[in-house]
């Protein structure tokens, strides 16, 4: 009867399902390439959860192994999950609301003040974290109202990568690029020689603001006043480059990754990008160099610091903090930090690591750049920064896409930022 054949078919499907499910389950636990590492190395002291924004590292990576080692040193096992960095803030807020925060949270530095303000993070007073060796300009991003809420795992910043072959073919001497007029002149020469000038990221997210800040600060402008004439001149620099064809139209949608991919084609002279591209730069197949981003009238522009902070979220069981503090201290110890920073291509946050890195000629310019960099939430901006950053990138998008002039776009941005930060 038909019903029986249906039943048989369903049973077959169910069996197939069970078999596949079993296969999937088995293969999962044995090779465990997902983000959580095996918890078998820890001691019997319980499981501590770690959330980080490095989904590119799986269970077999050095980072996971380091976490496990720190865990076993502290007598506990670690369950680690890697999330997409743009997601992590909201995941943490939702988790904190439900009392489900991880024990250790590694998160991008500009959101530390937001999370601290939400009451989600503990300060170093509560957890006895030692922040003595950390460079002050890097620690500032994690400070709010005089308290410190985490330790930077490392830092990175922006500089100008240049393609030596393209510059020499265009007859540009890199030593002559010292300020904005000389940079623009170099771009003109490159374009005349048939190549492309400069690429960067001006996308309508925090990445865009991040990339714009060296130029913004390099003009002498301040984030508390977005509509100053210096800010307008910084934005005009970019819009002029676009109009003259020195920078491609795609910068409006570029992330730092896609901007780097443009540079990696070998057709561009300059790319504004960060420390983390060092490994890619070596693979690029052409000779490259680095100069710090010039300020408007000469000198080096202050660049924003990137990089994550290791923080300890608030837990209802406060006796966990003692072990968590040991985990964090282990992660950020000089040797471990050096290894991690090398993997991530970051610069160390402590003098000890920075000195070690400065010994290598590749890294020395970056060590200097990071020393001159400043946090986006410093200058006492704290949680005001996100409310200023969004109007800023909106203004950039409007000006670059031609919907508004730089001055009027920044004017709108300043009103929005002022209203939001009242």
């Amino acid at each position, binding site marked *: 009867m038909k019903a029986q054949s249906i039943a048989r078919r369903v049973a077959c499907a169910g069996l197939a399902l069970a078999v596949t499910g079993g296969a999937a389950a088995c293969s999962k636990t044995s090779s465990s390439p997902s983000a959580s590492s095996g918890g078998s190395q820890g001691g019997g002291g319980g499981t501590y959860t770690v959330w980080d924004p490095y989904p590119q590292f799986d269970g077999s990576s050095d980072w996971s192994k380091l976490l496990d080692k720190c865990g076993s040193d502290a007598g506990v096992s670690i369950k680690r999950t890697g*999330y997409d960095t743009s997601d992590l803030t909201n995941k943490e807020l939702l988790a904190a609301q439900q009392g489900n925060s991880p024990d250790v949270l590694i998160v991008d530095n500009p959101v530390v003040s937001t999370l601290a303000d939400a009451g989600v993070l503990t300060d170093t007073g509560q957890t006895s974290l030692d922040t003595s060796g950390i460079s002050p300009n890097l620690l500032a991003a994690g400070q709010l109202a005089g308290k410190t809420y985490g330790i930077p795992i490392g830092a990175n910043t922006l500089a100008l990568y240049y393609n030596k072959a393209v510059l020499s073919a265009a007859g540009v001497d890199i030593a002559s690029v010292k300020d904005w007029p000389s940079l623009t002149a170099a771009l003109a020469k490159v374009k005349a020689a048939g190549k492309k000038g400069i690429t960067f990221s001006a996308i309508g997210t925090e990445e865009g603001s991040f990339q714009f800040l060296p130029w913004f600060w390099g003009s002498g402008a301040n984030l508390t006043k977005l509509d100053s004439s210096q800010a307008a001149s910084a934005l005009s620099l970019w819009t002029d480059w676009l109009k003259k064809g020195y920078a491609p139209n795609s910068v409006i949608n570029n992330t730092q990754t896609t901007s780097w991919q443009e540079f990696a084609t070998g057709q561009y002279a300059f790319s504004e990008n960060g420390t983390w591209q060092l490994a890619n730069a070596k693979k690029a197949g052409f000779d490259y160099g680095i100069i710090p981003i010039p300020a408007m009238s000469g000198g080096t522009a202050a660049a924003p610091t990137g990089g994550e902070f290791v923080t300890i979220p608030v837990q209802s069981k406060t006796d966990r903090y003692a072990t968590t503090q040991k985990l964090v201290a282990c992660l950020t110890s000089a040797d471990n930090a050096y290894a991690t920073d090398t993997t991530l291509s970051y610069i160390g946050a402590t003098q000890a690591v920075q000195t070690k890195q400065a010994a290598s000629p590749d890294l020395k310019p970056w060590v200097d750049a990071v020393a001159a960099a400043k946090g986006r939430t410093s200058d006492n901006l704290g949680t005001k920064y996100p409310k200023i950053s969004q109007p800023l990138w909106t203004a950039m998008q409007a000006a670059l896409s031609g919907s508004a002039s730089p001055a009027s776009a920044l004017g709108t941005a300043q009103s929005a930022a002022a209203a939001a930060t009242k």
Partner: protein
Amino acid sequence: MRSLGSRTKKPLLTGVGLVLTALMLFPVYWMVNESFTRDQDMRKDPPNWFPVHGTFEGYRAVLHQQLPYLGTSLLIGLGTVALTLAVAAPAGYSLAKLRPRGGGVLGFVLLIAQMIPGIIMAMGFYVIYLKLGILNSAPGLIVADSTIAVPFGVLVFAAFMSGIPEELMQAAKTDGAGPLRTFWSIVMPVSRNAVVTVSLFAFLWAWSDFIFANTLDGGGDQQPITLGIYHYIGNNNQQWNAIMATAVVASIPATVLLIVAQRYVAAGVTAGAVKD
């Protein structure tokens, strides 16, 4: 609907069909092209229509790391199908044949239920799942994914089953069969096409779901392929050829399924509606 054209039109139709399909699938071709492209050629101007300096590194990464995710996706897909059928088929039968009072209201509510944006559902589920302890688990994801398919499934089953001739139902009644027996022995076998259609939609929706997977299984041990892609989206860098390669590899089993199931889907969706 039989074609009334002459024989000579057929090869021409096939030709036109091939061109249309090629146009429609061009972005898919481009995706495959990108999956073989080296990182430094990704933004080449002008772009390569064919990956001349191809690389297998994307596929190597995928085959090395992503197969368990494919297994989990398959498990979740099949589980979603089972759950959707279990909930939607009886409901469709009830709305079409048994017609209890208030059934129309329920139908309307089901329509509205589909209007709720996914992220809102996901956030609500997070709280429920946390309390129930099924966060970061495959069964939890199966339940969440089925919410995408159940309202649609009820709609399809109701429409299809309303087209089942009353004589069949009468015959079952005179044989002394109660509603349950009628449902299982008469209605379900006849509704085979609707079953396949709903299964197909449920599977495909579960296969490509991201928002529920991301919110509810972000930290789980068993993750579907849509999350597996995130291995290649690091905090500062993305490996696009690997991302595209993951999509290609993930699409192959689903495409096979589609081609096999097509002939059932054809008659499945709306058999009852037109005769109204």
